[in-house]
């Protein structure tokens, strides 16, 4: 087999990668710029990272974002899993079609509309905008994504496993806890991660539903951008990119190791 790539393949690959990552690379490089001017390189420095850590506003926003993301993705996972369960398991009930349509509608709904309608609702019921309203809003739109991920797993789930659990003395709840949940856990976890990242980078819905006391990081970044690009933002983005990159690499390594382990186990099982 020829090991070296053809010139054509090499070029496409380079151009493709450049298209995807050059902007981010540029941003990361400039986060180490000594100059306050974003477009002028004045030598290497980590001063903006220091500034960032001393910037209480950014730290507060980051803390709000993290809390919102953890709580809303957890709630969305619980609700989304329940919805998926009902949709996959109960083949017939009154209003099933309507329910399933409504579960998936927010996936295609423009975020602006979701945000606006939630804002109107919160005003109507007199709920002060703050962390709570952002959490509720994020839970609402993230649970559809969770429900899509979990129901695609449940569809291929062998129903007789649950029947076996019932047959062996489990109540329906116990069967879910002891058998179904452990088996669909990977889908539930990836649903949670999806909800978490969606919440983490949501700007539109959060800006409708946040109050003055509860600015999330995306809102903070966006609003400081209007005052001009600061190297601090570059530093913050670099940190975010690194966190995401580490997360992705770790997740990939873990799943790769799991596959490898399963394969060796199967090989051993055959002997």
């Amino acid at each position, binding site marked *: 087999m020829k090991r070296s790539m053809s010139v054509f393949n090499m070029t496409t690959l380079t151009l493709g990668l450049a298209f995807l990552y050059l902007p981010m690379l540029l941003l990361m490089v400039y986060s180490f710029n000594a100059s306050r001017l974003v477009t002028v390189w004045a030598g290497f420095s980590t001063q903006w990272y220091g500034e960032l850590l001393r910037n209480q506003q950014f730290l507060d926003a980051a803390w709000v974002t993290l809390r919102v993301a953890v709580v809303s993705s957890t709630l969305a996972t619980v609700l989304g899993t329940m919805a998926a369960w009902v949709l996959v398991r109960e083949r017939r009930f009154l209003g099933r079609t309507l329910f399933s349509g409504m579960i998936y509608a927010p996936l295609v709904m423009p975020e602006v509309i979701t945000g606006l309608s939630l804002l109107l609702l919160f005003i109507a019921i007199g709920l002060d905008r703050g962390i709570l309203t952002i959490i509720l809003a994020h839970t609402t739109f993230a649970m559809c994504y969770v429900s899509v991920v979990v129901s695609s797993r449940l569809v291929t789930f062998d129903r007789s496993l649950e029947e076996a659990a019932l*047959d062996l003395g489990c109540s329906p709840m116990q069967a879910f806890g002891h058998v179904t949940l452990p*088996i669909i856990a990977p889908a539930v976890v990836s649903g949670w991660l999806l909800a978490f990242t969606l919440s983490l980078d949501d700007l539109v819905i959060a800006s409708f539903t946040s109050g003055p006391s509860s600015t999330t990081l995306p809102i903070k970044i966006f609003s400081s951008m209007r005052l001009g690009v600061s190297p601090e933002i570059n530093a913050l983005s670099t940190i975010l990119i690194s966190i995401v990159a580490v997360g992705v690499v770790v997740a990939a390594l873990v799943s790769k190791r799991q596959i490898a382990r399963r394969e060796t186990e199967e090989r051993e099982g055959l002997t």
Partner: protein
Amino acid sequence: MESKPAPAPFAPWEDAAAHPLIRFEGVTKRFGDFTAVSDLNLKIYPREFFALLGPSGCGKTTLMRMLAGFETPTEGTIWLDGQNIAPVPPNKRPVNMMFQSYALFPHLSVWDNIAFGLRRAGKDKETVRARVEEMLRLTRLDQFARRKPHQISGGQRQRVALARSLALGPKLLLLDEPLGALDKKLRQDTQFELMDIQEKTGTTFVIVTHDQEEAMTVASRVAVMDAGRLCQVDTPQHIYETPNSRYVADFIGEVSIIEGRVAALGEEAEIAYAEGARPIVTRTGGAALEPGQSVFYAIRPEKIWVGAAPHPDRINSVEGTIVDIGYLGDVSTYHVRLDTGQMVKALMTNAERYAASRFTWNDRVWLSWSRHAGVVLAS
């Protein structure tokens, strides 16, 4: 010296005083417009190995799922040990099931799979351990206890499923096509293993299968089902030798069916099947027949002798031409067209080497059989 009397054969269904473990009383199950089981009455006795046999869609699986508690009868009652089980949910029934797909919990080891039911029942650690180990020994799985289901072979998985469903010591074990996923050789070995385990544990087994050989091998009684109804419930031998309908005769084993009419009726009947041909002489086996009634005469291929001349000791002999020969080594099947047009299958054992080359295609042969060889069926 007098020899000991042989132990009475196991046949509680012939004993009017015996209490059935399961009684179906007028059970009907409908799914929307489709009737899966229709007005079914059946008794199954303790320690029986009972087989439900039929083509797919005949209602045998529905029947089993009603016993397990996953379906409830639309009409009628199912009694288990004198108790109406309709309101009892599956997790409260003294019934366990072995699933067709085995339904082993993939996230648990073999050991934990077997212990699953015992733990749910709240048994203490020591009891669970002892029982699981007993089950592992019974199914010869000792060295696989720590493996996960995906690390063992199909045959081993089948045994784990069996051990798991037996661990709770159910009154009744349901087996849904338990050997369907195994290859032929393994299936045969496992059939005997199943019978062995059933004898050792004394549990009542109800097995659902579409494989007639399997049903015949393992079961004490076989129920042949078609379209939600029981066609015949009897021992394998009776099902094979005295089927009560063309459907049963045809479903179990090979058979040739000749349409005819009762020409004479005495202790023996004569069945006229073609203009000018000598009627078939047969014992009626107690079937209620009337002269002139149109009937079906069913005969198994192995009951027919194939020769160059009529067999001197057999009352029925007809001449025909060999159309087809199936050589299987131990036996050969001959498809013979009678001069009157009917096709009849005959089976000859190849007791001597090259015995099969006695006859070839288009040879004229005589088929001979005795008065006991076939059965007369009204439907």
